[in-house]
């Protein structure tokens, strides 16, 4: 099949950027979306032009590196699917596809479709972990975890950190991302000890990094390739209020 692409091209953070029209010819239905872009890039190189820069790595939907807004939807039209797992049989021959980078204040564009998502790492660095040293821990079965809690923690922990939730949110909020980590650890007895402090420092870091507020649009859940549910945002809010009663948030550095 043949397609017309409108691809965001931007040389660097200071460049204004624009949509460039490109043709994708002889695309096979079996190709993945990124393989279609590979093919377009091979053509651009042969023509002496610069290929489209885009992030990608594992190409099996788990590393969270790929990040493209396709026809206005982060990760494209197929539900619960990353760009790298999206295949061309989801598109119509002769159609047009608009491809843009994640757009959010906290994610500055580096080049073309590549953005800087290190703000998400900084939210985790603020406290998205259990503060345990290597060694000196109890035997693994010493602390029991109810199966339901372990399963819910796993539901939250499946987040791949791609940032689609931020790109989908009209406020550019990282609420779902932060909520997933807060919930994962708060569900487990090992993580309870620090739960109050954790929710305070993580939400504070989220605000500092330039992410917006949550106003319950739920676009994040719709865009999430791993199906992380907005119930975790409610969980974050509960944890946050509990922490405030404890005065944990005032104490945070």
């Amino acid at each position, binding site marked *: 099949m043949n397609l017309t692409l409108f691809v965001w091209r931007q040389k660097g953070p200071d460049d204004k950027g624009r949509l460039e029209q490109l043709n994708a010819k002889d695309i096979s239905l*079996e190709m993945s979306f990124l393989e279609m872009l590979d093919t377009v890039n091979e053509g651009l190189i042969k023509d002496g032009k*610069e290929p489209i820069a885009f992030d990608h790595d594992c*190409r099996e939907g788990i*590393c969270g*590196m790929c990040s493209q807004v396709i026809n206005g939807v982060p990760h494209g039209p197929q539900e619960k699917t990353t760009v790298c797992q999206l295949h061309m049989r989801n598109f119509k021959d002769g159609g047009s596809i608009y491809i843009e980078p994640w757009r959010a204040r906290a994610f500055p564009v*580096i080049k073309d479709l590549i953005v800087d998502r290190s703000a998400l*790492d900084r939210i985790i660095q603020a406290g998205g972990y259990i503060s345990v040293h*290597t060694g000196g821990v109890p035997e*693994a079965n010493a602390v029991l975890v109810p199966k339901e809690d*372990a399963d819910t923690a796993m539901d939250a922990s499946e987040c791949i950190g791609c940032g689609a939730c931020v790109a989908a949110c009209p406020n550019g909020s990282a609420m779902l991302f932060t909520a997933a980590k807060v919930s994962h650890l708060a569900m487990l007895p090992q993580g309870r000890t620090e739960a109050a402090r954790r929710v305070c420092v993580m939400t504070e870091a989220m605000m500092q990094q330039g992410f917006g507020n949550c106003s319950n649009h739920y676009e994040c859940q719709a865009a999430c390739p791993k199906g992380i549910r907005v119930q975790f945002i409610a969980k974050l809010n509960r944890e946050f209020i509990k922490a405030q009663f404890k005065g944990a948030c005032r104490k945070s550095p």
Partner: protein
Amino acid sequence: MILDGKCPSGPLSEKWDKRCRELKLVSPANKRRYRIIVVGTGLAGASAAATLGELGYNVEAFCFQDSPRRGHSIAAQGGINAAKNYPNDGDSIFRLFHDTIKGGDFRSREANVYRLAMLSNNIIDQCVAQGVPFARDYAGYLDNRSFGGAQVSRTFYARGQTGQQLLLGAYGALSRQIKAGTVKLHPRTEMLDLVLINGEAKGITVRDLVSGRIESHSADAVCLCTGGYANVYYLSTNAMGSNVTATYRADKKGAFCANPCFTQIHPTCIPVSGDYQSKLTLMSESLRNDGRVWVPKMKGDKRSAHEIPAEERDYFLERKYPAYGDLAPRDIASRAAKEICDEGFGTGNSGRGVYLDFADTLKHPGEVKIRERYGNLFEMYEKITGEDAYKQPMRIYPAPHYTMGGLWVDYNLQSNIPGLFVLGEANFSDHGANRLGASALMQGLADGYFIVPYTIADYLARTMPGKAGTDGPEFKKSREDAETFTKKLLSIKGRKTVNEFHRELGRIMWDHVGMTRSEDGLKRALELLPELRAEFHENVNIPGSGGELNQELEKAGRVADFLEFAELMARDALLRNESCGGHFRTEYQMPDGEAKRDDENFCYVAAWEFRGVDNGPELHKEPLKFENVELATRSYK
């Protein structure tokens, strides 16, 4: 040269304790005066960087991805082994050790593997404490499942995403140290060179992948945790960015590369569908519990699967290996599938695929059970192929998956270059000629959490901290060499793209240094590889410049290294006149087609020393001694 792995003497079970007593320590006040570079942030790198940071060292961590949470360990599905014996089914440290040695076809070091089995239990404790949400039963206890090559249930898992969950645990520990200021992170940065001062590893030269700047970093020791080289085959289950550059460039600086021909080809992957294909996706091996493998009996049969009646199907695994049937071991199943496709019986447009048919199980015990067991895999299969495996058989084909070979290290995980430590898949140490399932995660974390933090102190305690700055002549030359190499690549401006060369390289490697190897084929590869390499350096086309984000330039550097490294693999495979594990030489097989090992002549580690690209490497041997297990034919009959 005869290499010495420097294993401690004494009984097997006391070796590691003995070594820990012998190792020198660095006092807490002195630790902060030492700087350690850790390259790679997968399981081995993240766990090492976090632990070394906790201990108080200054750590510099590097990864080429945008975040340390994305190392390819994240894609591991099945699980992680440990000798906890929770199911009370007779497991023990010795049994895990024995299974791993036997699985590796007796080509790994006894002492290393025993230590790995010992530490496996600490890993599970550590990960649970970090909040890794392992599967549990209704009483709240940890759950186990079975894996290949073992008769006990010792595999811990977190749904089909065990690697992801373990890596996120290590990433959390690493993030905590970044916050504490003990670890400085350098994402989107690729190592280009190892810098030696007076023969010891004292730093690296890197390229900032965003600005394109080439810079050096000095340290008192360097840890390489940069994974394997299965992408030498172009198509593999590895991530697109996985590469051999860091380890190969260390090899060029004098680090020996051990057993590079030991590669693992996984039997159940989604087949190639066309020339444009960029990578292969693994479908869990567990599917062979319920699926039957077959091809049509007639060559080039174009009928769809359900139109072919039972008597016109060749269930070739069941035919060739009646005792094991569809559950034949990985290497045997892979080879059988390739052979039958080579003979022209393969299915699909490319003819490179065999059916994995669930029809019998769908009849009984039925679709509900299949959905429960493998639902997510069927979904993934449908996303990629557009086919519904509940209605028609899956098509699968073997794909390169893991590399057992890597840089040579001693028992302390130190390479032959003092101060250079190698962890995880990047070293050669624990899996011999074939890795068992659920062992890679175990090794990466054992190396990073529990081994290197002890052994590196022994090296550091013997050196004065902070001597090397990055202004010395060795660093200057390293930067100049990297600049020159980059400029040279960019100046070629030929007519073929980097991918075209990589694809050709992959074809040569798959055909001649792949699942089955022969003397003729390997010699042919050794003719073709230098030709392809020469053409690459005359005719590759890399657009753009070096002073910017340039993904084609990144790829070109990696492919240039693969083109040289491939030759080393072929040489190693040619030298090893035996079949063992993943290394199958057609000349050396039992009458029934099983691998024929030659313990008299090849019970050693082949470690290669770089002697210039055109000179051919020099071989060093480390003899393997087996004092606690009997060298036996690895029979699965």
